[in-house]
């Protein structure tokens, strides 16, 4: 028999679930994901140079789209899911029950994190598709030159509209556009990757025996690190949302991330400046796009270090959020 969860965890799970459902149902979040996905998979079609290496521009751009759009989605979900709740009184209705403020904060963070996880899952596939679609130098008897994977490009561009159509049907029946859009896109991406395995990059059906999805799996770790950075962003936006509005939280987190890119260069600077950069997230630790240059890979050791670093930030941000929210008048 399954043991019941302790009340604290039940409350955390309830808050997280409601926040996640509400976040995924928000039309703005659907739009952000749609824009991020389409821009990522359209990039190889529109690019005019290879950035020194076939596929590099496409994968770097896709990672950048995931970071920027993910940042907006995280700040929006935290802001709307937390500061709006405080402003409108829905948080008061929840906290009038036997729910601790700590469990409420943690639940909110996990809810927003779930939305960002779904978002990153979809955009990670977009990055993998973009890298496959991107120009590939072909040199054989029939053709010599740069080509794009037309089948992969077409399929990946068609996925979000298809998911949107499924969402629209669900919305007509049960007002469930966002949930169905994200769940169908999440499921269709790996299915499309499996289907593309039967086609060569030249768009020719290669047969069942020669199945190979042709995706650049080296991208998986750098994409996971972007997600780790976004998880830390979720924690900080949750913390700031206990006191600030959505726009202010977004501006503050963006400034933190922007300045965080310079954290690595602060080694020889005065102690005060070093201390300032020490508390900011070192964004560069999570941005490993350059490590993939010329067939390189991100080492598991570096990735584990960055994930641990993200976890420290999450714990620090949640402690800050709990302390800030503990005595707030609702």
């Amino acid at each position, binding site marked *: 028999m399954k043991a*019941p969860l*302790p*009340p604290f965890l*039940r*409350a955390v*799970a*309830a*808050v997280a*679930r*409601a926040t996640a*459902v*509400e976040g995924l*149902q*928000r039309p703005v979040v659907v739009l952000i994901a749609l824009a991020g996905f389409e821009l990522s998979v359209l990039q190889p079609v529109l690019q005019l140079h290879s950035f020194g290496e076939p596929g590099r521009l496409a994968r770097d751009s896709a990672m950048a789209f995931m970071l920027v759009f993910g940042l907006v989605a995280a700040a929006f979900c935290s802001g709307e899911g937390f500061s709006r709740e405080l402003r*409108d*009184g*829905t948080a*008061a*209705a*929840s*906290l*009038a*029950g*036997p*729910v*601790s403020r700590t469990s409420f904060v943690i639940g909110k963070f996990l809810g927003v994190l779930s939305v960002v996880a779904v978002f990153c899952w979809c955009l990670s596939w977009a990055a993998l598709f973009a890298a496959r679609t991107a120009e590939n130098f072909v040199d054989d008897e029939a053709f010599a030159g740069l080509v794009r994977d037309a089948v992969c490009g077409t399929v990946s561009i068609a996925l979000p509209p298809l998911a949107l159509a499924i969402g629209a049907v669900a919305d007509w029946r*049960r*007002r469930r556009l*966002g949930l169905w859009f994200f769940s169908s896109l999440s499921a269709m991406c790996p299915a499309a990757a499996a289907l593309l395995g039967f086609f060569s990059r030249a768009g020719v059906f290669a047969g069942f025996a020669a199945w190979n999805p042709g995706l650049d799996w080296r991208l998986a770790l750098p994409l996971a690190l972007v997600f780790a950075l976004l998880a830390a962003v979720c924690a900080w936006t949750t913390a700031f949302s206990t006191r600030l509005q959505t726009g202010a939280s977004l501006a503050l987190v963006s400034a933190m991330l922007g300045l965080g890119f310079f954290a690595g260069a602060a080694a020889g600077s005065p102690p005060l400046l070093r201390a300032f950069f020490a508390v900011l997230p070192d964004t560069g630790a999570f941005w490993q796009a350059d490590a993939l240059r010329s067939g390189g890979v991100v080492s598991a050791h570096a990735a584990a270090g960055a994930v641990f670093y993200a976890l420290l930030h999450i714990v620090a941000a949640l402690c800050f959020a709990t302390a800030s929210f503990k*005595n707030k*008048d*609702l």
Partner: protein
Amino acid sequence: MDNTSVQPCAPASAPVLEATDLHKTFRDFWGRPRAEAVRGVSLRAEKGEVLGILGPNGSGKSTTIKMILGLTRPTGGSVRIFGLPSSAKGARARIGYLPELSQLHPFLTPRETLFYAAGLFNMEKAAARERVGQLLEKVGISSADADRKVGEFSKGMARRVGLARALLNDPDFVVLDEPTSGLDPVGRREVKDLVRGLGAEGRTVLMSSHLLAEVQDVCSRVAVLVRGLVRAEGSLPGLLEMRSGPVRFDAEGLPEEKTGAACDALRALGAASVAASRPTRQLEDFFLELLRRSGEA
């Protein structure tokens, strides 16, 4: 409902609500006093009592309610619910709260809203499913509406969902902040009947309202707040009884032709002026009867 972890350990004879000398001063960013919202409010409610808080805007009604619920920290004074501090989970597990304006999560359906609340109250899934179904029916939300987003609802419909949410944990103490706000006359009557029913079931209700007639209809006791102070408190008959002025007689079954004789008899007993008239109905009763006859309610 699984309340094993939040069993209260208070004396059985303790009043349901005991707020003593509550003060609240709001401060600005620099910690300077900005507004003194509540200046020494004391309230007490016993089991089965329907206590109304009346007062104009800015009188401190909502702040008092939030302090009672532990949502706002009092600057001074104390609150005990079922003999426990208001922050105790054992006390809060027995409270149902309907906030002012029933702000709900706009992208959740009523069913999801209630399941969310059930999770917060640590209810078992099967019990929650049964209770959610009962409450949706009780507040008049159809099964088709139960799967629509709350953001699409009218103010009155959202209020019904808020009420269902407030009653989800089968509370012993129900706090209603402007419960009929946004409701049409039919809905208002239903809420008033519901509040009366809660009192009759032995639950304690604390209700704030701007609408005097509404409070008069349902409350057994009233506290009037003005500028953060309780200016009057007591049972309604005690507060409303006029010690001087005319005396009213209700005579049921008196034939029309004998009304004059009755008036003469009163004059003979020394009454300076005597008037006889037929009682009138409340406009609300008239309106509801009209709707009933038209098949609208």
